[in-house]
């Protein structure tokens, strides 16, 4: 018996034109779905999605957060007032919903601002090194010596009490974290061959740093940014609780907690508990996402 071996085989020709396809070979999907691999991240994302929906659409469906009604003060949660009313008779639910927009945007803006500034400085320190690195690192050491909260407190006190100033102050307090993370990553990336390749391709040092090293040094900072967004909400609320930054009657969760705390002693727990719970849940949601993506590829 003899089977002729064809000279040109369709199988081989197909292989030659196809090229190599890693890592999902021939349509076999080896990855498990995201919910199986990172369940907490999915939980965090779902919670945040709800927050965002509430922040964007919520104010359309609830009443005015500033309308007072002394006759209806300090009512416990009911069908009319889901979260009850505060001592001025304002609807806690309406105030909490309106506050979501402010608190979330503050958290995200602070996280992005401090990440952008921090990683730009960090990549300069990590890529150029020598004395510039020394100077930048010692400065971050000084800033990190103060607890972030205290630093923000001092900055707001110096710059004056306004929402933009609070954002600037809190962002400034978080910048050193991003500087350190990006610098550490850039120090490693600097030794990679693609950096030499980029130099040989004619890139000037600043272009090597910002176009090649920076994008490859951002991963830890991106993870950190989700955590910072959570912390920033906590910090801003904490400052508001102390009466620094955002002031009553602005609907803001920290302000609401500050206003409601005295009521707890007299038994009206709902005025502080609901906004407080919303702060914790938002911070936790950011953390779930950040933690799960900590070490693994996005």
């Amino acid at each position, binding site marked *: 018996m*003899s089977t002729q071996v064809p000279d040109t085989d369709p199988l*081989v020709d197909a*292989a*030659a034109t196809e090229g*190599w396809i890693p890592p999902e*070979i021939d349509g076999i999907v080896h990855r498990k779905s995201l919910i199986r691999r990172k369940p907490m991240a999915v939980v965090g994302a779902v919670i945040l999605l709800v927050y965002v929906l509430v922040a964007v659409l919520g104010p359309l469906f609830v009443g005015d957060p500033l309308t007072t009604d002394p006759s209806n003060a300090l009512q416990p949660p009911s069908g009319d007032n889901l979260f009850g009313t505060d001592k001025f008779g304002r609807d806690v639910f309406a105030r909490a919903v309106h506050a979501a927009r402010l608190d979330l945007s503050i958290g995200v803006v602070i996280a992005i601002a401090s990440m952008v500034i921090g990683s730009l400085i960090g990549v300069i320190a990590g890529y150029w090194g020598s004395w510039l690195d020394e100077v930048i690192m010692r400065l971050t050491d000084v800033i990190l010596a103060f607890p972030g909260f205290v630093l923000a407190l001092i900055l707001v006190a110096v710059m004056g009490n306004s929402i933009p100033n609070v954002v600037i102050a809190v962002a400034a307090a978080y910048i050193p974290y991003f500087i350190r993370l990006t610098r550490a990553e850039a120090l490693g990336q600097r030794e990679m061959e693609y950096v030499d390749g980029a130099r040989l391709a004619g890139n000037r040092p600043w272009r090597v740093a910002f176009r090649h090293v920076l994008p490859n040094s951002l991963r830890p900072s991106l993870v950190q940014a989700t955590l910072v967004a959570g912390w920033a909400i906590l910090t801003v609320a904490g400052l508001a609780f102390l009466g620094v930054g955002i002031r009553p009657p602005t609907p803001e969760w920290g302000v609401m907690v500050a206003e409601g705390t005295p009521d707890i002693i007299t038994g009206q727990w709902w005025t502080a508990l609901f906004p407080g719970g919303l702060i914790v849940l938002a911070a936790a949601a950011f953390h779930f996402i950040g933690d799960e993506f900590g070490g693994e590829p996005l």
Partner: protein
Amino acid sequence: MGEGEIVGLVGESGSGKTIASLAIMGLLPAAIELRDGSVRVEARELVDPTTGRVERRAQEMAMIFQQPRSALNPTMRVGNQISRVLVLNQGLGRGEAMEEAMAMLGHVGISGARRVARAYPHQLSGGMCQRVMIAMALACRPRVLIADEATTALDVTVQAQIFDLIRDLVAETRCGVVVITHDLAAVSEMCDSMAVLYGGQVMEVGTTVDVLENPSHPYTRFLLDSIEREVDPRVEERGVNFALAGCRFGHRCPHAYEACAAFPPMIPVGRGHTASCFLLQDESSHAVARTD
């Protein structure tokens, strides 16, 4: 594999050579399951049939790894590392074990064993670390030694020293050695017999002389060609495709045809020389026809 024999396991990256050796040693990561098969040393079955786990004794098998420096514990003096192996596996006393460790270090060609035994791995060169690894592996006088790319990370002149050492030790202790490597020339120098692996399948087995002088599997021929001359341009540069049924080399093989969709059997091509390819079946039937 016989006593005092050196067997080579050859293949490119991703061919499953390291996994095969880890499986033999019972060191597979928990995620990978040993489907079936058996490992026997001096007629004792090492694979537990109920759990599928490999039960191994230090006196039976030992292994040396590719990166000698990272295979040693960086926080322990190397003398202590070797003597611990003896204390744990042979039940020797501490002093006795230390004496034996010194003797082993001398054995693997380290002069000034006492000084080296007091050193930490980072104070030793790569070649020296590999000698220490070998001393540790041989401390319990195993019957089988597995060397996984043991010289790849070393310079050629040091590699030659280690090859020499392994050969001398084999002649002396009569233990069997499995050399796992991607370097066919190293196999040619070191080994009595060899197996060629691709995509987790054995492609060809035989004595080193037979396989290298009369390569029968297209993959072996391709590997040899790639060293000596230009390779067949039809053999595309592709990764190992595990999703394929049948012959694992089928998607790169210039001679692949319909039959290759099935799993080819091992076909004898000479005394103790077999290859897994359908072409050989046809050829042998041709040969029979011609001799008529």
